């Protein structure tokens, strides 16, 4: 009788996935986070804004072809938009049939307007989507991130991580991807999907030519939200051992910033100070700073207007990153 | 000095100590048992921090839970890391002495004395966050002896200490005992306690398995089955000689044939008789050893009996 499989055996397996092994940190992190019932509810709830976005795209494309709508909308838009609309309408070329059947003309004008303004309206709508969705992002990050690093601080897991061929940077990246996974799942993917729906539902695929920039803007917006908020969340998580302090700090930063900004705005208006100085208070509220940056990403304002707000996001990212790395590498320094 | 009468402590459904009765006159005691065996519970009941679920625990004749009298005569050195980090050593010891009822001047004097004794004078003005493990243990000891108690109670005094610090602690405690004072020391590392205590209490699962003086304990060891190894160049003849003796149960050859192992239920008698057995034979026996010659072995044997394996 031969004895095999007794005791300790050496292992001949090859460590093939060394370069991407840090992704396992994300996998485990996401799994652990997903155990939370509230997160599941929140993720489900977060799909509603995306539904609205999809409905908007659908309606936008279909509006011109609905009977009776064009006659009502054309004068309405004319009075709101003024010169802008007149220009678009004047440029419409009418065919012989259309002059003979004047009832089709409003429809055509509306369709032309819709086509001309598509990039603008679509961008604007996606911007609103992201801007509204920001609140949900803050909630979701606030649910997942406090425990991500503070638990490792408490259980001194760093020694176990860093005694393996993993660098502190890869560790942080793994944790960031954990949070970003949810961000992408709940916002980027639905936004991209809605865009695709819009394209499919629109009159022709030529739409892609005028709106091809939008998916890239969506990705840029994701990155713009993900990086500073993700790094800030992890930075707070790394500073404490008890997750609830990080959680409190996280929500406090957003809520206090948001409320203070609006209170200061209100007092400014009531004391009739110059409108130019209004924007100096915006720095307190990261929420509004991100809104400003999103407006630039979706082409609604120029970079020059928001360059200080952009710089603020860069500063938040860099400072959070430095603090985070310092905390994480503490056990391996002396 | 200490008396427990059928003391049981339950934490909800978890058992802390299970019907322990003992009477300890002044002396140096080692309370030995693995982690979770009830050592800390026993000490906490003794010092009045816990009330027994059943039975009575008396310290210097009084119930420490209700009466602070006995607490003035003891010094307690807990196992937990209880030191505030941003306070200096001197401040803390002084504060602890003041809590014992001394005024500030007296407390300062005593604090200095005791810090000198534990060799922490150089570090007395440093924040305790920067203290090493050994220093932390010594300062806890300092506050326990500053008011010159009759009984010093220590919970895991050697845990985490490096050999140098352990040596220092052993010396401090030995000196303390030489002054005629009492010690009750709880630990799960047997050989560290052996050097200091002359009496042992073995506890497991909240139950007191055995107690006695060192020599009683070794005597107990001398009467349980043991294996004695003899290294000899004349192994075969030695084996023949030895197996003839009635107190020897079995004889085994060593691997390599350089000696024999003798199995017996009466090791003490074998030790005593060995020189005489060798008298008439000119056999060389170069080494005698018995691997189970320690408190650890006793503990293991007791555990076996406890579980019904012997």
């Amino acid at each position, binding site marked *: 009788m031969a004895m095999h499989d007794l005791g300790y*055996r050496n292992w001949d397996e090859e460590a093939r996935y060394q370069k991407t092994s840090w992704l396992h940190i994300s996998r485990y992190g996401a799994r652990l986070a997903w155990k939370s019932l509230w997160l599941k509810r929140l993720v489900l709830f977060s799909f509603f804004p995306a539904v609205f976005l999809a409905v908007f795209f659908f309606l936008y494309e279909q509006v011109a072809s609905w009977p009776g709508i064009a006659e009502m909308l054309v004068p309405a838009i004319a009075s709101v938009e003024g010169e802008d609309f007149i220009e678009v309408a004047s440029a419409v070329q009418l065919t012989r049939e259309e002059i003979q059947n004047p009832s089709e003309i409003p429809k055509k004008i509306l369709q032309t307007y819709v086509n001309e303004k598509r990039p603008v309206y679509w961008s604007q709508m996606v911007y609103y989507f992201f801007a509204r969705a920001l609140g949900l992002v803050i909630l979701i990050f606030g649910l997942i991130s406090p425990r991500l690093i503070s638990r490792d601080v408490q259980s001194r897991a760093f020694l176990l991580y860093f005694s393996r061929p993993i660098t502190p940077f890869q560790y942080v990246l793994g944790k960031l991807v954990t949070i970003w996974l949810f961000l992408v799942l709940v916002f980027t993917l639905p936004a991209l999907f809605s865009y695709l729906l819009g394209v499919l539902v629109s009159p022709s695929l030529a739409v892609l030519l005028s709106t091809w920039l939008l998916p890239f803007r969506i990705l840029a917006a994701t990155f713009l939200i993900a990086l500073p908020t993700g790094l800030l969340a992890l930075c707070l998580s790394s500073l404490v051992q008890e997750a609830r302090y990080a959680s409190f700090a996280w929500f406090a930063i957003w809520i206090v910033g948001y409320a203070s900004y609006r209170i200061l705005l209100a007092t400014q208006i009531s004391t009739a100070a110059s409108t130019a100085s209004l924007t100096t208070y915006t720095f307190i509220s990261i929420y509004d700073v991100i809104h400003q940056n999103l407006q630039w990403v979706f082409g609604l304002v120029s970079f020059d207007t928001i360059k200080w707000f952009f710089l603020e996001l860069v500063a938040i990212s860099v400072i959070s990153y430095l603090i985070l790395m310092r905390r994480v590498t503490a056990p391996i320094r002396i | 000095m200490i008396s427990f009468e059928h003391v049981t402590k339950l934490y909800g459904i978890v058992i802390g100590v299970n019907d322990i009765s003992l009477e300890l006159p002044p002396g140096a005691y080692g309370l030995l048992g693995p982690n979770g065996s009830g050592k800390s519970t026993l000490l906490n009941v003794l010092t009045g921090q816990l009330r027994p679920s059943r039975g009575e625990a008396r310290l210097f004749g009084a119930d420490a839970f209700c009466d602070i009298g006995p607490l003035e005569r003891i010094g307690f050195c807990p196992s937990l890391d209880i030191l505030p980090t941003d306070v200096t050593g001197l401040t803390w010891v002084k504060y602890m002495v003041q809590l014992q009822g001394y005024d500030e001047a007296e407390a300062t004097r005593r604090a200095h004395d005791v810090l000198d004794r534990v060799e922490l004078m150089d570090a007395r003005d440093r924040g305790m966050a920067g203290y090493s493990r050994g220093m932390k243990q010594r300062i806890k000891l300092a506050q326990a002896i500053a008011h010159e108690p009759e009984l010093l109670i220590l919970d895991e005094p050697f845990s985490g200490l490096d050999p140098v610090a352990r040596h220092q602690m052993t010396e401090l405690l030995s000196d303390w005992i030489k002054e005629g004072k009492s010690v009750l020391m709880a630990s799960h590392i047997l050989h560290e306690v052996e050097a200091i205590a002359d009496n042992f209490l073995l506890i497991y699962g909240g139950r007191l398995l055995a107690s006695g003086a060192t020599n009683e304990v070794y005597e107990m060891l001398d009467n349980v089955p043991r294996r004695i190894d003899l290294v000899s160049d004349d192994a075969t003849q030695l084996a023949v000689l030895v197996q003839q003796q009635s107190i020897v149960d079995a004889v085994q050859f060593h691997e390599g044939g350089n000696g024999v192992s003798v199995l017996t239920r009466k090791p003490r008698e074998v030790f005593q008789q060995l020189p005489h057995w060798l008298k008439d034979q000119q056999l060389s026996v170069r080494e005698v050893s018995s691997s189970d010659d320690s408190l650890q072995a006793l503990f293991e044997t007791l555990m076996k009996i406890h579980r019904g394996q012997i």
Partner: protein
Amino acid sequence: MADASVLPPATAISSSVIELSGLSKNFGQVQALRDVSLSVPAGITGLLGPNGSGKSTMIKILLGLVQASSGHGTVLGRDIYRDGKAIRADVGFMPEDDCYISGISGVEMVHFAACLNGYPSAEALRRAHEVLDYCGAEEERYREVDTYSTGMRQKLKFAQALVHDPALLILDEPTSGLDPDERQLLLKRISSLAEKSNISVLISTHILPDVQQICDQAIVIATGEVRRADSIENLNRPTIPSIEIRVVGDVAVFHDTVLAAGIEVMETSEDRFVLADPHGSLAEQVWPLARQADVGIRSLVPARTSLDDVFLQAVQEAQVVEEAQVVEEGGGNDGNA
């Protein structure tokens, strides 16, 4: 005595697992390691030293986590400055502190550890179970690590160090907090790994009986310098050959008998005697003496310097050297230190 002796040369089959030469590390003013030179052969090596002696710094340098200030070194043939990652891929580290990854079960933690090393997931899980079998973790491997006792956490720490089949294990206080029987099991496991599975082990510990029991050689570090580096056999060898004898019976009578026979008594306490044996023939002489004194002999072994004594001596020497240096430096500045 202050010079570190190089350990016995490695055999032709296995080259040394760790080679350090002239390694120094300072943090600002503090000199953590000073000119450390070692050659650690395969087998089990004990690393001894008081707290603050530079042991943990050295371990971090060996793992490539901290860069030394000067000097050279290789671990398993890889440079400690450049190949830190490669070193960590082949070395298993068991930290001293109580550390774990919370929120997951034991087997998942060991699996996670193996995946972080880059092994394919399913294979890593199989291997995790295998290693946990070896470490004696039964059903508890399916429970969350947060609910584990200290002993079980130690087992888990050991398992995660072993899971990727390292060529070198670095264990920091592996038996601390363990019950005596668990301690023995772990020590036996370590011995068996070194003997049968070709894994070298470096154990950093304060528990000298452990070192005595399983190590082949030991290194003593104090105040950042290597004070002793030798095989256990050599360290144990007393300066004067002697035997240790423990008797059963009237110790005083035996003492007198021995003195009368002209034998030098080097040490005595209770029933224990250490007798000088310059010619190596004392073992035969004691039997008639025992008969004469009518005592039994409980133990008769060649005396050895306990590692405790070796350690204390080394540390005391280090302190003397350090004090001398402080006096030297302080000689220039009046009123300082």
